[in-house]
């Protein structure tokens, strides 16, 4: 599906993020949470790459690493040709306006002592030379765009509803016309109509400015709508990646198949009779992942070899990758 002219804006190679575990009074390191354990992917210029997977599988950690909000354990992250994993402080600051993040936890990412107007305009103060009036107008436009009334500009974050706060974070991320945005569950707390409004906005901006998105979400129907390609993650690793339609119509990895079968139906008349693959067993801990294929403890297709050998990440169709010994 991908034309050869498409060039990657973001190239992630063998990314690892391990959080050390300390125990005991001496706080000795006794292990590590392997939140992200060796993943590689590209994000092409102007596309939306969806990143999906169970809660706790490492999606937010990937998003934070890609913008270097964490010091990564291993691997490289090229954005526009520069490996940001090794950039120094000043170089990184110069790069920051181009890459933004919409955070999963809106409350925790908004300064409670600043008005919404100043939260949204703060990046403008830092990186742009704008007059007061220009700034006010820009803030107003951003608030319109995310469906917040302009008269709310002088209110503080706690005076908003959950969904309104989420939209403040979106307006702020858009302020500097970034090139690349990591959207971490950006619409999770919004009603369907406002979700649609925000998604339409993200698409409009993409069309107008050629924006590139890494879109993290557990909402599989929204990812299908928005994403050009989709990457599926399980326990710190990618298990499948492909063109969005191919992946949804013909998922190849047993985990992707299970994930897609579990989507609830917005129709109570249907709710009872859906063919679900319910995954047995618990999600293993990323501090102690199973040997071989990490999905082998829950996989309905697992064979003895799966518990020993880790499956290779292979191209199984054009631009379609998966890691499984028994792809149908």
């Amino acid at each position: 599906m991908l034309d050869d002219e498409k060039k990657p804006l973001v190239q992630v190679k063998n990314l690892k993020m391990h959080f050390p575990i300390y125990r005991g009074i001496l706080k000795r390191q006794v292990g590590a949470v392997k939140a992200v354990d060796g993943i590689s992917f590209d994000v092409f210029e102007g596309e939306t790459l969806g990143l999906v997977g169970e809660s706790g599988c490492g999606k937010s950690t990937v998003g934070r690493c890609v913008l270097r909000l964490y010091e990564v354990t291993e691997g490289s992250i090229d954005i526009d040709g520069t490996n940001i994993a090794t950039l120094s402080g000043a170089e990184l600051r110069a790069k920051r306006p181009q890459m933004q993040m919409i955070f999963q936890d809106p409350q925790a990412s908004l300064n409670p002592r600043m008005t919404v107007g100043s939260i949204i305009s703060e990046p403008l103060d830092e990186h742009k030379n704008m007059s007061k009036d220009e700034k006010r107008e820009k803030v107003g436009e951003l608030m319109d765009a995310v469906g917040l009334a302009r008269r709310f500009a002088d209110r503080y974050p706690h005076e908003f509803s959950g969904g309104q706060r989420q939209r403040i974070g979106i307006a702020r991320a858009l302020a500097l016309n970034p090139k690349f945005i990591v959207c971490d569950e950006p619409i999770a707390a919004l009603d369907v109509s406002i979700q649609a409004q925000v998604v339409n906005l993200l698409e409009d901006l993409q069309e107008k400015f050629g924006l590139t998105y890494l879109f993290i979400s557990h909402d599989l129907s929204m990812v299908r709508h928005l994403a050009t390609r989709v990457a599926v993650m399980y326990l710190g690793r990618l298990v499948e990646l492909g063109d969005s339609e191919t992946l949804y119509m013909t998922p190849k990895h047993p985990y992707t198949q299970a994930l897609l079968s579990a989507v609830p139906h917005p129709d109570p008349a249907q709710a009872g009779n859906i063919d679900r693959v319910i995954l047995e067993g618990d999600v293993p801990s990323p501090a102690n992942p199973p040997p071989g294929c990490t999905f082998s403890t829950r996989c309905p297709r697992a064979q003895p070899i799966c518990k020993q050998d880790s499956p290779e990440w292979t191209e199984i169709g054009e631009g379609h990758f998966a890691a499984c010994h028994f792809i149908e």
Partner: protein
Amino acid sequence: MRDQSATVLDVANLKTVFNTRDGEVHAVNDVSFYLKPGELLGIVGESGSGKSVTMMSLLKLLPMPPAEIRSGTIEFDGRDIREVSDKELRQIRGGEIGFIFQDPMTSLNPVFTVGFQLIEPLRVHMGMSKKQARARAAELLELVGIPDAPARLKDFPHQFSGGMRQRVMIAIALACDPKVLIADEPTTALDVTIQAQILELVKELRQKLGMAIIWITHDLGVIAEIADRVAVMYAGQIVEHAEVKELFANPQHPYTRALLETLPRMGEARAERLPSIDGQPPNLDHAPTHCEFAPRCKHAFDRCRVENPQRRNVTPAHDVACFWDAKAGGPIDA
């Protein structure tokens, strides 16, 4: 509108107003609903329509001022929560009524371990020993699908993922076998598989303990699956209320209909543009004097702009606050 059998929670004519620097915000306008044991009431509505403020008002969890509960009664298990002593209120909160907040990071205390935050209510409300409480805490974390649960009791909230924090909140709310569980967007950060696991758990507790639940969500798929009845909120009011099948099959209020029309459906081909409801959200700086949905409503007529519609029955178990008769396709009799 009223069912005569016993209710565990009965809220009547609740009004909550914020007194802010630039005047009043009428967040909850004359809201009434009831809940029977073992039942699940779903609440849906536009972002900012007053869902969270309604639930926070029930347990007096809003800072007053600026919040003010201007009127209403909140009958829980034979008592009016507005009248009970502070001591009794503390017993109810986190004991008889479990509460899952919309924003887990603000309700989990960042300086205490997750274990402490689970064990504390078990000791206070259930009178467990330290050892019993620790075992129960690990069991609860396991029930909500946290891997390696006993070891993770020692971790702090920031060491958990967004969805795991939400599940910790669920575990805390369920810890004391509450009579009523109020869950405010409890699964927004959860993927479908874990959500399914939580929904199963909730079903089980309803059957086993007769726990009654209020479940706020924007996810109509979840509502379709678990709710018995649904209330739809707009501009601080309940504009429609019905049994779940009836609501989906036979929506009356133009807002409910628009909401159902905007729903993306998994099986269908990709729409170029997602449909959304046109127009501005309502301004809450006044108590409603007319239908607040009128500027966005395609059926609006003169009466809608001068009078605020009250809830009226469509069938004995289905009511709507609207002057338009969806079945007849014309205004109702004045």
